[in-house]
Every structure is written in C-alpha cells, then in structure tokens.
C-alpha cells in the first residue's frame, strides 16, 4: 500500500493506493478465483477518524482512494484496509 498526504491551506489531500486483486463473487466464478475484496478503508490521525469507506467487489483491481480533510503538516495519518477474508494492512505516513 502506498500513502501520500500533502497539506495546503489547512486541507490535507490524501492518496491511497492499495495492492489488492479486488475480485467480486461473479468475477471470481468466471476467473475461477476466490472472491475477495477490500470491505473497509479507515484513515485516522491520532484517535480521530478522517476517512471511512465501506467497499464492494466493484472497486477496481489495485484501487486508488483519494480524499481530503482539515489537518496540518507533520501529523501522522494511519490508513488501514480490511478485506473479506479478514486480512488487514496498515500504513502510517507523515503529512507533508
């Protein structure tokens, strides 16, 4: 997972690139692969949630998520995704 966070005028722009096959149930049947996709993405600064998404199998392979929040430089943003099988990945990055 790649995370980029950049602040300008009090707004932090975040880009998250997750590495995931993101296969929906129908697609899995066709490709003879097990369905598995990112079901949730949560970003936090400290204890505060700044982004929260519930996803489906209709996100693309290696999905890109972009969002904005009110924040400042130097804060540490931590992004976590969880998939259907329960696997999670977390990445922490300082806001530039």
């Amino acid at each position, binding site marked *: 997972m790649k995370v980029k966070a950049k602040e300008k005028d009090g707004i932090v722009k975040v880009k998250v690139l997750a590495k995931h096959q993101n296969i929906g149930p129908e697609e899995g049947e*066709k490709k003879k692969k097990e369905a598995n996709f990112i079901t949730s993405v949560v970003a936090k600064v400290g204890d505060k*949630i700044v982004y*929260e998404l*519930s996803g*489906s199998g*209709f996100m*693309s*392979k290696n999905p890109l998520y972009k969002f904005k929040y009110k924040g400042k430089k130097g804060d540490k943003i931590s992004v976590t995704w969880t998939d259907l099988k329960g696997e999670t990945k977390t990445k922490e990055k300082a806001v530039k």
Partner: protein
Amino acid sequence: MMNRRKFLGLGLAALALAPMTKLNATDFRKEKPDAWKAEKPADAIKALYGDIKPEEKSVEIKAPKLAENGGKIPVVVKSDIEAKSVAIFQDANPRSTVAVWTVPEGGIVDYAITMKMKGSGKITAIVEGKDGKFYSKVLPIEVSKGGCGG
C-alpha cells in the same frame, strides 16, 4: 477469593464498556447487508436509507463520459453539503452498491475511487445531509470494454 456476585458484577461492567471500544463509527457492510445484495440502484438506496426522496442538486459526479477500460474507471463525488454519509451506486454490474462513506465530523465530501463497470450504465450518488435531507446526482457513462472479468 472472588465470590459469585462480584464475578457477575464484573461481567456486567465489561458489557457496559464494550460498545465504547468500537473502532469504526459505522460498518455499512454489517449494518446494512441487504444494501449490498440489491440489483437495482433504487432497491439498494431503499435498503440503505429507507424510502427517501432525494433532491437532485448540490452533488457533483466526475467521471469520463466514455471509459475505455471498464476495469478501472476513476469516479469523484463532490458536495458542499454538510454530510453524514455518501453512497455510490451503478446499474451495469450484478449488484448495485459500489461504496458507502461515513463522513466524519467536519469532513470534506470530495471522494475519488476507481471502480469497475461491466458495461455502459448510470452512476448514482446519494449524499445524506446533516439536515436530514437527501441529495442525489445521476450520471450516465459509456464503457467500451467491460471490467467485470469480461
């Protein structure tokens, strides 16, 4: 030694504390399972929000008019409304709901994702405002090569 009454009391205290340790505000996949099974956007919206009549204004969707690759379509949802949640649906895939966001307090609604579409269809975005009203936008897009394993 711990007696029975004390033991039971501890259990109750633990139960009372449990909801507070919950990490996420809303897990829409768990709380609204039917919304993720619906085939049509209208049914998915009903399963997610109930019988609502959204106003078609104040919501913006940015997506290519003609997507060459249905496997990775960049879609942006924007709104100036103070929102509680945002949802995206489409009518080209076997099921309709693509993503639902919980908007944090003071959050900015400017969300970009990359989604899959099996063919041409309509993207619908719903914004649930803090004022209790719903706002929507529908955007038809054309897909030249389907993205669901096609």
